[in-house]
Structure formats: structure tokens, C-alpha cells
């Protein structure tokens, strides 16, 4: 209980409530997800389960009153799936570029969508493949001030691979920094 109280005070000091920030920003998102693959080829089971993590960095982001657009690059790590019989799906590391758009519906709730593309490298073997992804999701604002914004995100991503369609249902955190402009008059 004391720890939760201390954490709440810390967040309160760092992010005193003020006007919802707007303008150019940088963003960092971290999320964890189960990765469910539906094969386009004949497999023993209809779906296989893996897990993954995603780290996205938004270098070019701009937040208007209710709209928010950003171009993001990032890394995804996906594990091999649970073994079933003699098979499992391969794990891979990905480099991703995505364009993200969010719309603020209520004070603390936004909906967002993203379109991305990835180059994926299978682990342990010298093999790579390209893919596309599209995501929709909800973003719940946890705390903000004029310089920062912290949100809980729930993206549902469809990963479009040539031989597999995969579903990622993630939970993550998104942190946005709105740099203060200096030197102007």
C-alpha cells in the first residue's frame, strides 16, 4: 500500500495536471502481446500461439486538439510458438515503420489506427521476409501535463505475412514528450 501511495505521489509530482498538451512531440511505446498465427498452408492445428514485445519510437509526431499523427520506427521480437507434435513456428526479430493516427473521443480516451510494414529476420537461420501490419486500438490517458503524456494502449494488430495471418492483441504503455520551444520572442 505504501509503495502504491509513493508511486502515486511521484507521478503526481512529475506530471501535475494542466492543459492537455498539443504540438510536435516524441513518443516511446512499449507493449507485450500474444501472437496468434493462422496459416495459409495446411497445418495440423488451425492456430499457433507465440508471444512478443514491441518497442516503437515516434520521431515525427504532432498532436492537434483532438487528432494525433506520428511516424514511428521500432523493433518487434516474437518468440517461437508453443511446440505441437514435431512443429512450431519460428521466432523472429523485426524492424518496423508505421504511420499512426489517433482521435481523442473523450478526455481520457482515444481511438487509434496504424499502418506499418516490417522486415523480419528468423532467429538462428539466415532467412528474412517482408510483411505489412495494420492496427486499431484504444488509448487510455493515465497522466499528463503540458510537456508529457502517459497512456495505456490496447492495440489489436493484424500482421499480414505471405504465408501466415497473425493477430497480436497487445497491452502497453505510450509516453509522449512535447519539447518546450526555446529562444523565440
Amino acid at each position, binding site marked *: 500500500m505504501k509503495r502504491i501511495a509513493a508511486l502515486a505521489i511521484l507521478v503526481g509530482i512529475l506530471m501535475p495536471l494542466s492543459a492537455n498538451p498539443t504540438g510536435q512531440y516524441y513518443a516511446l511505446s512499449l507493449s507485450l502481446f500474444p501472437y496468434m498465427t493462422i496459416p495459409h*498452408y495446411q497445418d495440423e492445428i488451425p492456430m499457433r500461439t507465440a508471444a512478443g514485445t514491441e518497442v516503437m519510437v515516434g520521431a515525427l509526431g504532432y498532436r492537434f486538439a483532438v487528432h494525433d499523427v506520428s511516424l514511428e520506427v521500432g523493433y518487434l521480437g516474437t518468440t517461437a510458438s508453443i511446440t505441437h507434435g*514435431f512443429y512450431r513456428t*519460428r521466432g523472429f526479430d523485426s524492424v518496423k515503420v508505421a504511420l499512426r493516427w489517433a482521435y481523442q473521443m473523450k478526455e481520457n480516451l482515444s481511438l487509434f489506427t496504424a499502418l506499418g510494414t516490417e522486415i523480419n529476420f528468423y532467429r*538462428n537461420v*539466415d532467412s528474412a521476409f517482408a510483411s505489412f501490419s495494420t492496427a486499431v*486500438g484504444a488509448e487510455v490517458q493515465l497522466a499528463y501535463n503540458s510537456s508529457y503524456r502517459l497512456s495505456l494502449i490496447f492495440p489489436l494488430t493484424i500482421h499480414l505475412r505471405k504465408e501466415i495471418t497473425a493477430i497480436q*492483441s497487445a497491452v502497453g504503455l505510450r509516453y509522449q514528450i512535447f519539447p518546450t520551444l526555446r529562444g523565440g520572442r
Partner: protein
Amino acid sequence: MKTLLWLILPLLLLSVGCELTSAPHGRIVHLAIALSYRGSDVQSLPAAINDGEELALAFGDLFCDRLVIGQQLIWDGDGHASETADLCRPTKEAVISHIALWVAALDSNDLLIISYSGHGLEDGSLVLAPESHDGALLLEDGTLNPLLILTVEELLSLLVPARAATLLLLDSCYSGNFITPTGSSISTIGTTEIFAAAWRRYASGATPSNCRLFVLGATTADHTSFEPLAGSHTHGYFTRALLEGLGWDCTQQRLTVRRPLITADWLYAYILANQRLPSTSEGGTWYQHPTIGGGPMELVLIKR
């Protein structure tokens, strides 16, 4: 928010539920094909016989808790011809009939392992034993008898109807030719424009890869593979590292290491790191880079 959670939860449960269903392991068949070409009119490969025989022993030991059927098609030259040796002679007809038999007989929960140690031609074709006992593989004009050649297309088409998982282990020159450019993935060995190549493959109409077939080759499609030139008990460099990866000790002739997890991908990485030969041409032509098929699936041999 609740709606989103209700969408995600059933998907997750359904997905994990798929893997909770039992998948009983069936039979494991290892067909070892090895040719030394001793006493023939092509270069002999003395280590190839050790490769075939010890892979058979290693797989028998590795899967000791399961039903393993081992068959050896081994040709150690015609110096000591016998009826038994003739039964095991890896002629093209014998190899095709054995593979076709097992492809038809094995079911989806079985595993077929085919290992080959012998010569490979520049297009990847395997060079098999002649029916005659005169050791003649070459025709009068010096070319190889085409009746002894099993091409990549012939072998891969034999494996298409297989319901069982199939692992093809090839310790032969140019064996990378068996990694056919199908499916979504590209090989990154020696590829400088990985991004462009991956995009081209995505945009292409490439046919889906055979996700039940797993190929592990000693070398790339454009290069030879090697065995030591001298030694008392030798193996091809690829097979020696493969045996070690399986936990096999060539001196003690038994498995001395029981690994908890062995997958085809793990074996590939192990061979690449432990094959005792350079994997790039920087040191000259005495190198080989193992190869493995692409595609989304991985073969799990052992999971304890």
C-alpha cells in the same frame, strides 16, 4: 474497453487451446544413404560411410524412447561384393523405391529423416551407385552416367505427397540447390540488398513452401563441401558437426550429451558455429556455409 477485452480473450483461449490438444509422436524412420565410391572411376569419399552409419546409430540413441526404424543404403565400393551388400546398394531405383515406400506408409504424426553423404553435381543432383559391379560411373566419353543421377526435382517431387514431417540432411557439394526459392522468405547468405529482395519476394507470386519438408544442407548452391583429406576415423565436416549437435561422441560411439531441445534451426546454428571450417571465402576456397530451408515452420526433433 470491455468490448475490446471480450474480443481478445476468446481469441487467446482458442489459440492456446489449439496447442493443448495432444499430438502423439508416431514412428521415426531414418533412411541413411551413403556412398564412398571406393574402387570406382570417380573420386572416393571414405568419410561418407562413417557419416551414414553413425547418423543411424545417433538417431537410434537420440529417439531411444520412441519407435525408430533405421534403414541403410550404403555403398562402400565393389571390393567386397555380397548379397547383403547388394540389398543395401543405393542405386537410383533402390533409393526411389525406399523413399516412395516410406512417404506412402508414414502418417502425419511420424517423422522421416533422409540423410545423404556422397557426391553432388553443380545443379545439386545426387550421384548414386551403379547396378553393375565394375565401379563404372562414367561413360566412355567421360561424362557421368545419367542413369545414376537423382536430380533435385526428382527427389523433391517424391516428397511432395508426404504426410509425415520430413528432414533431408545433405552432406554433398552444391546441396543448397535443394533449398528452393518458394514461400515468403529469402536467404540472407551473401545477400547485400536484403530489404529489396524481401519486398520482391512478397510481391512475387511465389508458391507457398512445403511446410512439412525441412532441408539442412552442407553448403550453398554454388559451392562444394568437404571432408578431411586424411585421418583414421573421419566424417564430412558438416556431418561431424551435426553428430556433435545431436550429442554424439564419435570416439565413444554413443550419445554423451542429452540436450533438452533440438530443433532443425538450432542444429543449423550449431553446425555453422562448430563445423571446423570457415563459412566464408575470405580464407580461400576451403570453406562451406551450411544452408537451411526458409518458411515459417521449424522442426522440433527433441523437446524434453
